[in-house]
């Protein structure tokens, strides 16, 4: 471990490499996490199938490459398809558990995750797949730092998507209705907002966002039917750290998590890359606990 840290000191450009790799992939984590925060905040459903939605998006991009179409064109298609899928899933499953307790909705979405995994496995088989973007690799600092262009493209697209979502939420009628429902569903209902429709739209929009994240992931990393869980966990960590309805927080937490993974993988070894994610979750929860205790004291 100390060897690796001293390496980072001797060759500072390694830090640049790790930071860039981490931050650029973190942008995609942030995208998926924002979707989760949206659904969580509005419907109070904690979607355990979040990562599996991401993987579904990845497979849509993969299908595009097998058809000889550039996977980046799969982005809008994946969003539309996943929006439809999300709407159907809401009507079929989520609508029935939304009023129930926490465990019912957790179980329902966990079951959904299993069904998605196995269905993808039946259709595409268990082998890993990639969507090849064909973009070049950039050399920085005299070739000591390499950067895949697709990661930059993904960052830009993720940023654009986030901006679009923010504008949508602020200006459109549906966006306002979503925010109103998140604040107080009962009051929103009394004001004539069709909250059921708002829930359905929110869930579908989340699926669409995940689909987009999946398309980007499939062009950068590899996808496999059972990889969804790691994206679900990352989304939960980011949302827990950032809090609901806090988009800047989600973005910072996403980028930070991506970078933390890379550095811990480098310093502690790849086996700790994901352990770090869970470790951070524990730290965040502890911090929150302490914070809340303080608040409770003030109130009393």
């Amino acid at each position, binding site marked *: 471990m100390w060897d690796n840290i001293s390496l980072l000191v001797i060759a500072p450009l390694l830090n640049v490499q790790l930071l860039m790799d981490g931050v650029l992939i973190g942008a995609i984590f942030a995208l998926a996490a924002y979707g989760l925060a949206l659904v969580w905040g509005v419907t109070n459903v904690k979607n355990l199938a979040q990562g599996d939605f991401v993987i579904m998006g990845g497979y849509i991009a993969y299908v595009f490459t097998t058809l000889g179409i550039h996977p980046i064109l799969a982005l809008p298609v994946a969003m539309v398809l996943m929006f439809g899928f999300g709407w159907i899933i809401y009507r079929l499953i989520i609508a029935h558990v939304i009023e129930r307790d926490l465990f019912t909705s957790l179980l329902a979405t966990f079951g959904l995750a299993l069904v998605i995994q196995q269905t993808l496995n039946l259709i595409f088989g268990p082998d890993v797949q990639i969507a090849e973007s064909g973009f070049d690799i950039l050399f920085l600092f005299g070739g000591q730092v*390499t950067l895949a262009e697709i990661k930059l493209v993904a960052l830009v697209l993720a940023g654009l998507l986030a901006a679009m979502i923010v504008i949508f939420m602020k200006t459109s009628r549906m966006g306002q209705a979503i925010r109103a429902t998140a604040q107080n569903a009962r009051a929103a209902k009394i004001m004539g907002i069709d909250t059921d429709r708002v829930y359905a739209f929110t869930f579908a929009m989340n699926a669409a966002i995940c689909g987009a994240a999946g398309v980007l992931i499939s062009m950068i990393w590899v996808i496999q039917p059972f990889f969804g869980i790691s994206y679900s966990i990352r989304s939960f960590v980011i949302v827990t750290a950032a809090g609901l309805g806090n988009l800047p927080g989600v973005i910072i937490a996403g980028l930070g998590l991506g970078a933390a993974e890379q550095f811990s993988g480098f310093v502690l070894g790849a086996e700790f890359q994901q352990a770090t994610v869970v470790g951070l979750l524990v730290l965040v929860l502890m911090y929150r606990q302490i914070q809340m205790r303080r608040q409770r004291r003030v109130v009393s």
Partner: protein
Amino acid sequence: MFQFKPIHAAAAAAVALSLGLAGTADAKVEGDTIILGSAISLTGKYSTNGIHAQNGYELAVKRINETGGVTVGGKSYKLKVVYYDDESTPARGAQLAERLIQQDGVKFMLGPYSSGLTKAIAPVTEKYKIPMVEAEGASRSLFTQGYKYLFAVLSTSEQYLASSIELAGEIAVKNGKKASDVRIAMAFENDPFSQDVRAGVMEDAKKLGMKIVIDDKLPRDLSDMSATLTKVKALKPDLLVVSGHSKGAATAARQLQELRIDTPIVAMTHCEAAQVTAKFEGASEGLLCPTQWAESLSYSGAAFGSAGDYDKLFKATFSGYKSVPYQAAQASAAVLVWKDALERANSFDTLKVRNALSATDMKTFYGGIKFSAAGNNTAKPMVLRQIQSGKYAVVAPAKWASEKVVYPRNPNY
């Protein structure tokens, strides 16, 4: 109202199955047919390779039945395999092995796919003293339990990448350095198979006094190893070895390219399964990939002729195969072992057959087969192939090599 309870479903399924297999009370030999049993992964995460293995079993059964069957006690018998789908889960595999032995009366078993499933099933076959010839469980830990009824035709997992260490040593000596100058970077998935592979590499590296500069364990749901590869880039080892099933091979190939890793020797398992030559054409050039079997080897034996003949027959029988996976070839070899042992035992007594299996010493299209006391095959080496101009060429061991190893590797990033 009729409620469909799980117990009804289970009972219905059991009835349906027992009807389907009616008359299998004494299923080891039915009339003129010898029944072999196998729980195999036809669905779930191992299904790709499970189906390869099943095709291998079926091809050998067909071939043996067409060429005179199995002669026991002067009578010719046909072979048939009863399969159950273990859904790629060990617990289900163990249950199904119980069912094959207890309910279906199977006395001769063929193995499942993967070390994990074999580990789950071996205690069951051992308990009932039912011999099992397996072709897809390579983990060394299968052969340290003192099992008496387990026989494996394939090379054990610690041999997968060990030959690349030897090769790196030889190359160092040829270039005027010492084998002990070689610095190794390792990235192995944290699963029993890959850790066995690692143990083999460690052993050989220690023997030659090589230095290990990176020893990373990759997580199971691995999709990124750029942190490990950044370390490789900084430390410039002479040899990089990677094992993490096909996801490891695909991730490594993709990120080797992205990070422009120029390590002169890179060896990894599962190149074929990850289709690295097709998906990462430039980056895969010069990779060293171990394999249990290759159609270009000069092995040959009775039933199928040469390795090349087997390759042709397999492709003609099953559509959709561009190349024959070794998983299928070794499954066929396992069936050949059964025929050979049953004929030598000249009996259906499980103990006699077990002793005949243990005395197996045969040449096949898949290589030599001779079992150690622990049950693993000691007569067939792992071969190392290098990807040269997009094709796999055998480069080690020297006896079977068709091409010289290209050093340093020449990826076309």
